[in-house]
């Protein structure tokens, strides 16, 4: 085995490990949402190729308001679906679309675009 082959193997293995670590095992940034004066736990989520922020932390039992702002016209993100909560919303581009939820049971609730390519989740504690 030549040196370049050995280097490619080592490079491949380390790159693969990095991919696996980065996408699966690294700690995701969780954004904690505070309760506003109106009694809502209100968050703004930017939709552009993904949801930013995409992991949000809420308190159980208090009303939640997510304001989605879709800053793109790519059809992929035109719908946001909360399958566990049986809710959906059409996201009109460049408008703030509120989605109000009430989650009493702590747990993780995912949300996604119509085809499941963009994903995010609500952690309710």
């Amino acid at each position, binding site marked *: 085995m030549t040196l370049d082959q050995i280097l490619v193997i080592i490079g491949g293995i380390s790159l693969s490990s990095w991919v696996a670590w980065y996408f699966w095992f690294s700690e995701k940034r969780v954004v904690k949402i505070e309760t506003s004066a109106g009694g809502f736990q209100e968050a703004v989520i930017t939709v*552009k190729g993904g949801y930013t922020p995409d992991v949000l932390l809420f308190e159980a039992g208090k009303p939640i308001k997510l304001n989605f702002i879709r800053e793109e016209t790519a*059809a992929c993100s035109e719908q946001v679906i909360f399958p566990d909560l049986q809710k959906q919303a*059409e996201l009109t581009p460049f408008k703030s679309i509120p989605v109000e939820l009430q989650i009493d049971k702590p747990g993780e609730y995912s949300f996604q675009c119509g*085809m499941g390519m963009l*994903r995010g989740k609500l952690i309710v504690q």
Partner: protein
Amino acid sequence: MAHDPVCGMEVKTPSKYWLDLNGKRYEFCSIQCINKFAIDPASYINLDYAEQNTYRTTNYGIENIELNINGLQCATCVANIENSLKIQRGIKKAHVNYATSKAHVTFNNKDITTNEIIDIIKSGGYTVGFDTLKIGISGMHCGSCVTNIEDGLKKKNGVIDANVNLASGSASIKYLPGFINADELRKEIENLGYLTFYKSSNETKLEQGKLHEDDTNEVDDNQAARDKEYKTLMKKFIFAGILALPVMFFSYPTVWNLPEQFQMGSPVLKYIWIVMSLLSLPVMFWSGSQFYTGAWAAFKNRSANMHTLIATGVSSAWLYSAVATYFPGIFPEAVLADQFYDVIFVVIALVVLGMALEIRAKGKSSEAIKKLIGLQAKTARIIRDGKEVDIPVEEVVLEDVVIVRPGEKVPVDGVIVEGSSSIDESMITGESIPVEKHTGDEIIGATINKTGSFKFKAIKVGKDTALSQIIQMVEQAQSSKAPIQKIVDKVAGYFVPSVIIAAIFSFVVWYVFGPVPNLIYALIVFVTVLVIACPCALGLATPISLMVGVGKGAENGILIRSGDALETAQKLNTIVLDKTGTITEGKPSLTDIITWNGFTEEEILTLSASVEKSSEHPLGEAIIKAAQDKEFNLSNAHDFNAVPGHGVEAKVNDRKVLLGNLKMMKKYSIKLDSLEFKSSELADKGKTPMFVAIDGIAAGIIAVADVIKPDSANAIEKLKSMGLEVVMITGDNSRTANAIGKQVGISRVLSEVLPEDKAFNVQKLQNEGKIVAMVGDGINDAPALAQADIGLAIGTGTDVAIEASDITLIKGSLEGVVLAIQLSKATMKNIKQNLFGAFFYNGLGLPIAAGLLYPFFGLLLSPMLAGAAMAFSSVTVVTNANRLRRFKPKF
């Protein structure tokens, strides 16, 4: 009892603790209270006075509001809201109705405002329904005008929020209809010195639950965005596609047999490569911009998607080609200095085209819900203060009397109070034949009045109308997850990073073990693997079919509650039908008249109906209705007498009429002869026969029965032919039950079942290992519907959101059951096809792209072919789902 002015407690008079002040005796509960009072009596006395004062003003400051509340889940919520309201100052009465999700609050507007009440309800975690009025305002010049109008509006009771936009010259006002209306709001703005004009019809909006707010407008906006995106993508495709042609031409000099100067290694080709490297930049960063922005956004969130794959693949190809173009010397062998610009152009062009086609196809998939939203009437003509006025449909309140002329849409749900007409209900129930409606009949909003004019009283408005409920149920079902999707979700989470790892792995294997030039092969395989993987097809497979299937159901009057229900419905093997109201009409009607001793049918029917006019028996109604349908003139009966357990007797036009059972006839010694035999024949068929005797002579028999719906037998036959075991359940005696069962072809009849035992009987069937569906009405059969694996509720009129049911059939026909099962089967088949296609495609495509076939057949996939395959796999999924739109029930 006296009142402690300090703590507010009731104290026994005379109390041990008391004080005299200005001649008035004050009593207290304890020494502490006396002390407090003694220090500063004025504050407590004033409070006392203030309270009395308030009480007096309430006579004209008192108001009542009705608020729609969302999020009421249990009876305890009711108590929560009521209690949180009652402790507030100024609230006189608070009553929350769980069934209607409404709060009725009586309050004093001096102490508390509507907004504060709403805030209190909200702070408990519930939301309140309101309307939004969008109105244009002219005459605004500055920011202070904005605050001026906003403050002016917000002061009004019933206005929750007002937002004025100076730039667009408009206001968006959230208000409670029934408390203040659009006209009053407009006048308020005009009073402030501005001009108003209607921007568009105002739009109903609910704070929660209804996310398609600003309905029509929003749908249009979305459609416009979709159209724009389609056009942009097509432009991007054309740009990349046109450039791809010369690139393809010069990339394969040997294939096209080009002259020497264009072959590998020539200086001309080197310049062409430079041009291609530059041209590829706009293709990558304009035509393919979404791949980069999408990939980057996902990367930041530590996730990966289709864009990640395409962007990585295309970028790798470009990097390699650029090095080959500008620094060919780096490569140890000349043959390695090759370019892959063609891959960039073709892959981007094809994938972009695929995305454009997908948008087009997806627009069709969501047509059903758009159609439903579009059904809503915009205006209503109502009678207010004795005058006919046209108002936006959102402002129709309960009990309003609405006028509907021929050809017009019924704006909300209600009951006809005057007039009659035939109404086309096909858009709601799927029933194509217009239905005759008379005074007292329920009518459904969004249906079309065909022939006559009528007036009706609104009984359901806003989000309570059948149409709104249907839309909400369809949306909920469309956003639910079929259990089958859960596997897909697991896979999808790992899919893209796995593909990247697989691509790296393939690169390494080809580099180490592949043929010469191994670097080129390794790169091709790397790019091909990235490009061919299609996570979209996988992610889209279930939801898109579910969306089309559920929408198709709604078009046919079948409301499927969730993906779960759809998936279970196709696994059913036993179906339990409730008799009354499901197989039969649910109300008695006249079936037979047997004449005797020379009496005519008209005589018997007219006289019996005239007698029954005085009775209140439900069987009597059937006789009266039959006589009225035949337009016989009824007379008044005299000397009416009901003999319990026997029948009735009366005098009509001086003729003595007896109507009753055998006991009645025996009592009056009427000779029946073979009429008695005929009577038991009718009884055997499940009918209720009544003897009629006129002036002491037997005149005949009138038989009444709960008739079987005309299509029941056919539908049951169909269910049986689909391999389902059909069981009938009823509280009737076994003789009647079996008679009905025989007529509709059901052999397994569970008779004499008490209503509360129906659920138990369903469970017994389930214990036999069967997957059971129960069909019945949503009220009496609710426990059985809930117990069954699938509960199908037969809808009655406007009540469509039946809690216990998994599927609601708006049209009260058993054919709906057949249709629901067929549709579930068709949808699940479609989902499975899609999933199989997606898994098969990826499962087969990925190894081939990695070059698994190369050692055996020398076959290696071109990255461009991979791009084409990827682009069209997701289009195929959507197109296949759209095939469901052509679903036709098989009868």
